């Protein structure tokens, strides 16, 4: 139980004053309501918010979203922006091991009544088509030359192989490839761990879901996104697999040495960091971007396989089924962005670890189609409750460097999931809700049961009420595929 100070700013924001710990450069600010705040006190996540405030160059505050929970160095749900011109640092702990873990959402022209009678066939087809689970290998092959292209050009590589269309790239953050990746700084080990993993879902909390829109919150935005009640959507959650894990681990070794080299004082080794402009900082960012591009390519390949499974079950092309990508967002990444701080535009290194970019209407980085609406923000929940589509806001630009939450946030350990829940009960619960589940490792599914997560409805309500994203619509799962 964490019993440090949390001062109420308003109904949805709480401050950890910088006086809490000598060494904090700014306050910590947590977005939560009273109920979620109680969950947050159960582990050391608040202490981690305070620890992040030690990092050189941090501006405004060390932020945390309402899905905050314990992570390595940074909490999951942590957001911090460092001013590059003022010695701002980049920290691999502010991105996490699964670099560019993220989510994409596809719309379809299918209605719930088209899918429900065939949901078992559909989930089975997805399970047969999309490799998932620990140790699974992808059917999409890439040789050494291709791997280099994937690191540099991300999802564009997949599109060139015929795994999607140009419009998919337009609907992907950074068009599916962030500039500045350098394959030459990526270790042989990372390449080896990532080999044959393109187009694989992975394990843990990664998933593929067939969903139906069960609630509309904003008719205007839903119309703009071409979405309606009862419409079937597909959500894909995955990241950079072993490739990204190894890049993070490699960089931690380098960054640990930087703490002495650049005389940086942090209270936790997992916050190891280096100035963005230092050779070590540049190397990390170049390798991290290669992993980010790998992840965008991975999700593009996963979407291609998903479309193939739908084509088989419904006997029509994905274009005929209206399977258009709404958007793809990263939720573990560090990016160089321009934001206004104290009335002046500054160049910042924005860390989002378990947090989603949520740029407001008019932002020049958004594709033309979303310039007026604000960026689509995709928030997955758990396998038994809901997921959401939101839109970015101007208030997020002003308060959180254009950022909002990324999911529900874990509250129960895997250990306690196994001791308090049963697979049989979980299946009964899902069946009663009409949800079909298939998993590569049935024994592990219990670790992802709805009960181990905060209620995503509560989390999303907080970001909506706080104004750092706007609810567009809510989905509920029909079919779930887990690694």
């Amino acid at each position, binding site marked *: 139980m964490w019993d440090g100070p949390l001062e109420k700013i308003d109904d949805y924001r709480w401050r950890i004053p910088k006086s809490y710990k000598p060494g904090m450069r700014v306050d910590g600010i947590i977005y939560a309501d009273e109920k979620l705040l109680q969950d947050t006190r159960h582990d050391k996540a608040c202490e981690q918010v305070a620890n992040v405030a030690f990092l050189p160059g941090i501006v405004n505050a060390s932020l945390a979203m309402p899905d905050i929970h314990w992570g*390595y160095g940074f909490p999951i749900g942590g957001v911090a922006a460092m001013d590059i011109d003022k010695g701002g640092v980049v920290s691999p702990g502010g991105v996490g091991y699964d670099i560019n873990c993220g989510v994409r959402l596809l719309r379809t022209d299918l209605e719930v009544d088209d899918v429900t009678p065939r949901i078992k066939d559909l989930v089975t087809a997805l399970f047969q088509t999309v490799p998932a*689970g620990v140790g699974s290998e992808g059917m999409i092959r890439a040789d050494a030359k291709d791997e280099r292209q994937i690191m540099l050009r991300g999802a564009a590589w997949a599109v060139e192989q015929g795994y999607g269309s140009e419009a998919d790239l337009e609907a992907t953050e950074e068009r599916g490839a962030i500039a500045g990746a350098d394959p030459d700084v990526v270790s042989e080990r990372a390449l080896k*761990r990532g080999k044959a993993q393109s187009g694989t879902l*992975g394990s*843990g909390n990664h998933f593929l879901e067939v969903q139906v829109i069960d609630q509309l919150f904003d008719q205007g935005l839903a119309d703009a996104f071409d979405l309606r009640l009862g419409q079937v959507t597909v959500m894909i959650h995955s990241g950079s697999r072993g490739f990204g*894990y190894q890049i993070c681990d490699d960089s931690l070794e380098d960054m640990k040495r930087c703490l002495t080299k650049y005389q940086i004082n942090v209270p936790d080794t997992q916050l190891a960091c280096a100035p963005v402009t230092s050779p070590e900082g540049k190397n990390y960012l170049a390798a991290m971007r290669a992993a980010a591009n790998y992840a965008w390519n991975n999700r593009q390949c996963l979407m291609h396989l998903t479309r193939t499974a739908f084509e088989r079950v419904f006997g029509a092309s994905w274009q005929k089924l209206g399977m258009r990508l709404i958007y793809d967002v990263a939720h573990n990444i560090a990016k160089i962005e321009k934001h206004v701080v104290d009335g002046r535009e500054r160049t910042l290194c924005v860390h989002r670890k378990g947090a989603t970019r949520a740029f407001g209407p008019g932002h020049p980085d958004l594709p033309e189609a979303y310039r007026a609406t604000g960026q689509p923000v995709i928030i997955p929940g758990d396998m038994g409750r809901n997921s959401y589509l939101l839109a970015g806001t101007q208030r997020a630009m002003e308060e959180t460097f254009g950022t909002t939450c990324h999911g529900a946030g874990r509250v129960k350990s*895997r250990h306690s999931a196994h001791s308090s829940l049963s697979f049989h009960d979980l299946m009964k619960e899902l069946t009663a809700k009409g949800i079909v589940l298939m998993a590569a*490792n049935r024994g*592990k599914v219990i670790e992802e049961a709805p009960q181990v997560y905060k209620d995503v409805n509560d989390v999303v309500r907080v970001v909506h009420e706080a104004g750092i994203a706007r609810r567009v619509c809510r989905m509920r799962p029909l079919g779930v595929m887990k690694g």
Partner: protein
Amino acid sequence: MGKFTFVPHTADVAVRVEGASLKDLFATAAKAMFTVLVTKKANRPVADLSELKVEKTGDTLEDVLKAWLDELLFEFQGNGRMLHRIKSLSVDENAVSACVLVCAFDRASYDFNDEIKAVTYHGLKVEKGRRGWQTTLVFDV
């Protein structure tokens, strides 16, 4: 042989490891890690045995322990080869030197369990107590 026990952790897998000596602690930590990674389901002849030499150094004992486990984790996830037996192992404050037998991962003998993303530094401290050495490992899964 030392012992290990799993301890609750909100997001990941944590294991408390104890050993009579440093060597015992390192060997038990490796065994604990492979318990997280795989579950044995059948006794079959071991396939394709080979020797792996591990020579790693570090500024602290914690660095050395992490480097040791990192080598074995990479051997498994990068090369598909799992720890079979430790032939020799010596450890001091700043180095580990070992010769281990590794074998091809055989899906007929083992099931995959958790995918370990990394051995983390979180709270990593190797300590000497009255009954020997102990540490708690947190694996990001």
